[in-house]
């Protein structure tokens, strides 16, 4: 198996290089000879693929090529599928070098890649995905390698970005609905009310997207900002003091880090439970459970008029 996996990308690479030279030749009118060469190179294994490539000659590279590659890979994979789990493992092993390769080229895609590979591991662990899915995964992986390995020209950023997203969507159909939007939060709408107060208009929405009790978030915000505030009649938060949206965003970010994302796996799918006066963060995806710091406002200096305070207390 190892040999085959190692062989596959090189084969593709060869093909592609052929094609680039081939294209030039075609332009020069050496079409026939080159075609023969090409066919020979690919061998009798898949003449269909060869034909496809011939069709490609006059067309642009990149996407088209990719699409054509896919069916070819699928055929091969279907042939290899009966081998079962071994295959998948090998695909995983084959993925690593590719990742490094990509790393050299572009960091951004690397991050995406990592996520993907992790996902795949999970799939394998839980084994609740159908074999077909696995084959698709593998197909994608190999597809990657092929397009990456055998390129003579530089890929543009847009192309790569598009590709990455396509692959991600391909592999995780539930991604669009599930994981992504949680990271993407709407920015807080912070408006000034008069000169001394600030209104946080979509406070309830944010509390809802974070799956936290508004009260908890409110406590944290007020403790962190060192002010007082309360909920308005139409569900917005009025905070005493002047605050910019950016400042509120900072505080929210800290809240998310402490009380929303799992401390172990950083997944936002967590539940905050109260247990004997302590708050515990229970992760839905990795199952870890840890206590989080209680919200304390700490020392508050006297900022108002002392005379007024004295008048109030007496």
């Amino acid at each position, binding site marked *: 198996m190892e040999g085959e996996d190692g062989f596959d990308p090189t084969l593709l690479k060869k093909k592609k290089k052929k094609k680039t030279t081939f294209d030039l030749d075609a332009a020069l009118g050496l079409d026939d000879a080159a075609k023969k060469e090409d066919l020979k190179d690919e061998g009798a294994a898949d003449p269909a693929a060869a034909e496809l490539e011939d069709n490609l000659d006059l067309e642009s590279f990149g996407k088209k090529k990719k699409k054509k590659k896919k069916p070819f890979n699928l055929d091969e994979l279907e042939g290899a599928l009966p081998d079962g789990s071994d295959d998948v493992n090998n695909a995983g092993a084959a993925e690593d070098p590719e990742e490094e390769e990509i790393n050299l080229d572009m960091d951004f895609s690397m991050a995406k890649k990592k996520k993907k590979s992790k996902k795949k591991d999970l799939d394998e662990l839980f084994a609740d995905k159908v074999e077909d899915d696995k084959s698709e995964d593998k197909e994608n992986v190999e597809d990657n390698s092929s397009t990456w390995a055998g390129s003579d020209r530089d890929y543009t950023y847009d192309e790569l970005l598009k590709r990455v997203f396509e692959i991600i969507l391909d592999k995780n159909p539930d991604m669009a609905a599930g994981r992504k939007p949680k990271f993407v939060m709407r920015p807080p709408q912070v408006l000034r009310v008069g000169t001394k107060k600030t209104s946080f208009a979509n406070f309830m929405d944010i509390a809802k997207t974070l799956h936290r009790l508004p009260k908890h978030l409110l406590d944290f915000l007020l*403790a*962190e*900002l*060192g*002010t007082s505030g309360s909920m308005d009649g139409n569900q917005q938060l009025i905070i005493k*003091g*002047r*605050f*910019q949206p950016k*400042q*509120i965003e*900072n*505080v929210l970010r800290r809240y998310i880090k402490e009380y929303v994302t799992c401390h172990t796996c950083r997944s936002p799918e967590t539940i905050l439970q109260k247990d004997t006066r302590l708050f515990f963060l229970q992760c839905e995806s990795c199952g870890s459970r840890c206590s989080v710091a209680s919200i304390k406002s*700490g*020392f*508050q*200096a006297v*900022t108002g008029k002392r005379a007024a305070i004295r008048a109030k207390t007496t």
Partner: protein
Amino acid sequence: MSIQNLNTRDPFADAIKGNDDDIQDGLVHIRIQQRNGRKTLTTVQGLSAEYDLKKIVRSCKKEFACNGTVIEHPEYGEVLQLQGDQRENICQWLTKVGLAKPDQLKVHGF
């Protein structure tokens, strides 16, 4: 001649010795509070009671060119209070002087 095995030995001796060089334990909370207008206050809570806070505040005032006091609080002990947003200054200063380690500082506020 004494039998070495029967000597009493404090098992926590090393731990105590290790703690000797940093008196500060627990977090130092650095907060900011808004006053009227664009004025602010910075409070530093949780510095170890073994430090002389008055001396600290004196040098802080000089360093940051701001006023400040030490406030005695029944629950939180002595608290430094400095005028203006001195959060970054105080963080740098505390680590530079060696009163607290960077991971013992906790900055609150926006």
